[in-house]
């Protein structure tokens, strides 16, 4: 049997495509958590993004409105979380869980009218270059703009956190909100912004699922990806580049185990389905063992409410 080299390229491209929503949501949540806020509502924000994107695409027939609308929907629902946790000082964990339950419920309700409607084709870039270079062609070219954005995002996030003043302020707030506040930094404002940004990225991740990856609306279509995104943030020890690695491993194993099931490899299906979860976590734990570095990159105030008293 001769394996077409472009076929391998296509498999790698499909792995990358399945990693996109994880990268987007994780990088958003990473910024939120770096400011000290633990938002467990990623799954809920993603599914809201998914239904909003799909519904807006169907109703307005404009992809741009749909994509930005999905991000805006993520921002809106995360505003609820921000208001509750930052203004009313509720518990991060409970509020985040409620957000996920709320998101899944409301998306199913809105989505009733959109089940079974076919999606629109999302334009891809550099389609023509795909066949020119073997192997690399299908990997590098012929993807949507969101795909390219997702693979740039970990590097942008890393640069933002390490090299920019605002990134420094975000890290400072996550390290010690009390000190930041005494330095004249508006902790609440910074945290609001980081929560809203996380919401936008989760919304975009959801829109990618319902508009590009599998262009249709299916109830509960995020299927736990929000939780994987959360786990990636923690196990990558808040490092965007490691999120990229983790998302690729997870996406890769998900795709490969599908193919293995299809070929009929004699390994129990349950084990194959569990494989991506186990391997991703093991790999991330192994590459992030340095306890000193963990201490330096873990936001010390993560999940703790900050209340400024006068």
């Amino acid at each position, binding site marked *: 049997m001769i394996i077409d080299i472009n076929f391998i390229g296509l498999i790698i491209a499909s792995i990358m495509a399945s990693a996109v929503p994880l990268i987007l949501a994780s990088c958003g949540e990473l910024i939120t958590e770096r400011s000290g806020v633990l938002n467990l509502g990623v799954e809920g924000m993603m599914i809201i993004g998914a239904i909003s994107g799909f519904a807006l695409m169907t109703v307005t027939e404009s992809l741009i409105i749909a994509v930005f609308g999905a991000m805006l929907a993520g921002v809106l629902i995360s505003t609820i979380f921000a208001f509750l946790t930052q203004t009313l000082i509720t518990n991060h964990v409970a509020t985040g869980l409620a957000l996920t339950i709320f998101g899944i419920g409301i998306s199913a309700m809105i989505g009733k009218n959109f089940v079974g409607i076919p999606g629109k084709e999302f334009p891809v870039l550099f389609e023509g270059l795909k066949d020119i270079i073997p192997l690399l062609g299908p990997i590098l070219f012929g993807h949507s703009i969101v795909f390219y954005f997702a693979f740039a995002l970990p590097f942008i996030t890393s640069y933002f956190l390490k090299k920019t003043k605002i990134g420094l302020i975000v890290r400072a707030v996550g390290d*010690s909100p009390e*000190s930041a506040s005494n330095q004249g*930094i508006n902790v609440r404002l910074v945290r609001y912004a980081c929560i809203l940004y996380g919401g936008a990225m989760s919304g975009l991740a959801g829109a990618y699922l319902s508009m590009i990856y599998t262009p249709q609306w299916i109830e509960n279509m995020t299927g736990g990806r929000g939780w994987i995104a959360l786990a990636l943030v923690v196990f990558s020890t808040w490092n965007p580049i490691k999120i990229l690695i983790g998302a690729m491993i997870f996406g890769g194993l998900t795709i490969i185990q599908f193919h293995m099931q299809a070929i009929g490899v004699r390994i129990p299906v349950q084990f194959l389905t569990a494989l991506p979860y186990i391997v991703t976590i093991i790999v991330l734990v192994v590459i992030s063992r340095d306890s000193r570095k963990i201490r330096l990159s873990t936001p010390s105030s993560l999940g703790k409410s900050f209340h400024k008293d006068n």
Partner: protein
Amino acid sequence: MNTNLKISNVTKIYPGCVANDNVSLEFNSGKIYALLGENGAGKSTLVKILSGVIIPDEGKIYLNENNLKLNSPLDAKKNDIGMVFQHFNLFETLSVFENLIIDSDEQRESLREKIDTIMKKYNFSIDLDIPVLNLSAGQKQKVEIIRCLIRSPKVLIMDEPTSVLTEQETSELFLSLKKFSEEGILIIYITHKLKEVMQLCDEVAVMRRGKLVSVSEIKNENIESLANKMVGQNLKTIKKKKAKTSSDQLIKITNLNFTSEDPFETNLMDINFSVNRGECLGIAGISGNGQSELFQILSGEIISEKNSIEFNNNYIGDLNPQERREYLMAFSPEDRLEQAAIPQMKIFENVALNNFKSSNFFNNGLINENKIKEHSKKIISDFNVNTDNIELKSQFLSGGNLQKLIIGRELITSPDLLICFNPTWGLDVGAINYIHETLIKINEKNKSIILISTDTDELLKLSDKISVIHKGKLSKIMNAEEVTSEKLGILMGGAN
């Protein structure tokens, strides 16, 4: 240029407490001012008002005749008021340079040059590119000071700056402060340590219960006069009688080693010491040099090798705290509300947490509430805890009362050995006196104490023997009479 700072009729009221009651003060540059008072006297509130952290209910602040509106720390910074807080406002996981650039509008390169100039001028040496958590307390304080100096402040406020410093670091700090003062920066120095006021300052303002009690020049005062103003009554000074030298060994630690998984804990290396009956062994050191690890090992929170701790001819290194209590050991940990008591639980419930077997607090798994309450009342009256209500949640007790309750709880079984860690940390002079008296009485009853403390004066007052812990190693054990605070300071800094 001359700087004049005026506080005019400042009042700040919290529910149930007047933190600042119509306080007016005036400061001029060229002098170092002390703001002296016990915990809760209102001095911290006052300086937080000056630094914009707290907004006063009434009153005004003038800098060179300009009325300042200080609604946030940013306003204080803009008006050239610099403040070094007692609890550092640093970001531990960020590098020194990142900590400094975060509130500066300057470019990286020009800021670096500026910092280098400041460090050269005042003889500071700090690596700008390592994370702050790798710095010593003294270095962290220098970072805070540099942060203020970058903005060329007119006023520099230091809040209890020496509580974490060694003697050497303290005298270095004093030299720097004098230099700043000569250069025209107005220095306000907040403390409850009388010795420092006498050493450093030119004028002193004393506060008590939110009110300004007196303002005077240092040359007209002495330690006793200031102490009496601070407490509001004449304090009797207590002295320890020389202990009868006994050679009856009670506890012996042999070749104790501890290696921590956590990189921010200190490893202990080759700890050997023994304590005789009726003796108090003091262990001095700057906080973070292994004291808390040593305390946890002695109390059984961390289990060690069975043979490494011999108590009353039993090897107990592998026993947990509860089992050790049965051998008549007792423990008073450093953090009163985190480790010694549970803040949300009532006084008598906290007392019951020491469920030593002899107490009959529990019958077949049921709580014997009457017994516990009776016992709690006895502790409260025996140990002078200022409350009648044993149903009160322990978080509402003042630090001094809580410490008395904890020590009382530990002592009511008349243990052979009490191990305490910073027992008077953060307490006011009256409570400190009481705790010290209690500890001296323990020794007089031929019982022993291991006193781990960062307060050298306390150690010199109470100990028969003293050792110093530095980076997890214990110095040789010295007789207390042969030791001076200077010598301790040198050992605490790591020199021989």
